[in-house]
């Protein structure tokens, strides 16, 4: 069964550094998402992406964050200058068209900012 893959599985970075988290969504999906989960907290929506542009974003997704689909297969999340509070598990998801096409999630990237 096709799946969403994320790399790396773990990333440790120093405060102030830029990080890029990578995702390969399911190939025939049209909608792409990033969520994050701070340890012990809820899974929170960051951004959704469709037709090469952001369709919706949360208040968490400020100017430090950006997303890109640089080619036909990858979907990336960039954090420009990481803060300690960016430490979390970041999940990529993709879905097809319509409400009855559920989001399929990757296994996540655990980001630790020191």
């Amino acid at each position, binding site marked *: 069964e096709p799946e*969403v893959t994320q790399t790396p599985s773990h990333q440790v970075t120093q405060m102030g550094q830029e990080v890029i988290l990578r995702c390969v969504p399911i190939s025939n999906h049209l*909608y792409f*998402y990033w*969520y994050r989960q701070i340890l012990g907290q*809820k*899974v*929170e*929506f960051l951004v*959704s992406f*469709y037709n090469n542009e952001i*369709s*919706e974003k*949360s208040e968490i997704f400020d100017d430090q964050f950006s997303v890109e689909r640089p080619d036909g297969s990858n979907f990336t999340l960039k954090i420009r200058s990481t803060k300690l509070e960016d430490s979390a*598990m970041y*999940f990529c*998801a993709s879905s097809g068209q319509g*409400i*009855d096409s*559920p*989001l*399929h*999630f*990757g*296994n*996540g990237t*655990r980001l630790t900012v020191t």
Partner: protein
Amino acid sequence: SQELEQSPQSLIVQEGKNLTINCTSSKTLYGLYWYKQKYGEGLIFLMMLQKGGEEKSHEKITAKLDEKKQQSSLHITASQPSHAGIYLCGAAWPGTASKLTFGTGTRLQVTL
């Protein structure tokens, strides 16, 4: 603001027992999704409900959505150790259907 509450927060059941997890929305839902998460892993899709009064089953798990489309329940019959994990409900509301908002999750432990 749109809220999604899950209960209970955690549950310990003996193998073979039945259990129910509830998810309540502050507003009428467009769709309700149930996911399962194992520690340190991604979310696995279980079921999606859209119509009021809808009920779906997969193996020993049954999910229902009430007629008003504001409450859903997930019922596990004859629980097994493989059912252990965190169960999350995710809501899509009218006007924000391009994203899911998740509840706080219910941590399920199944003892032998």
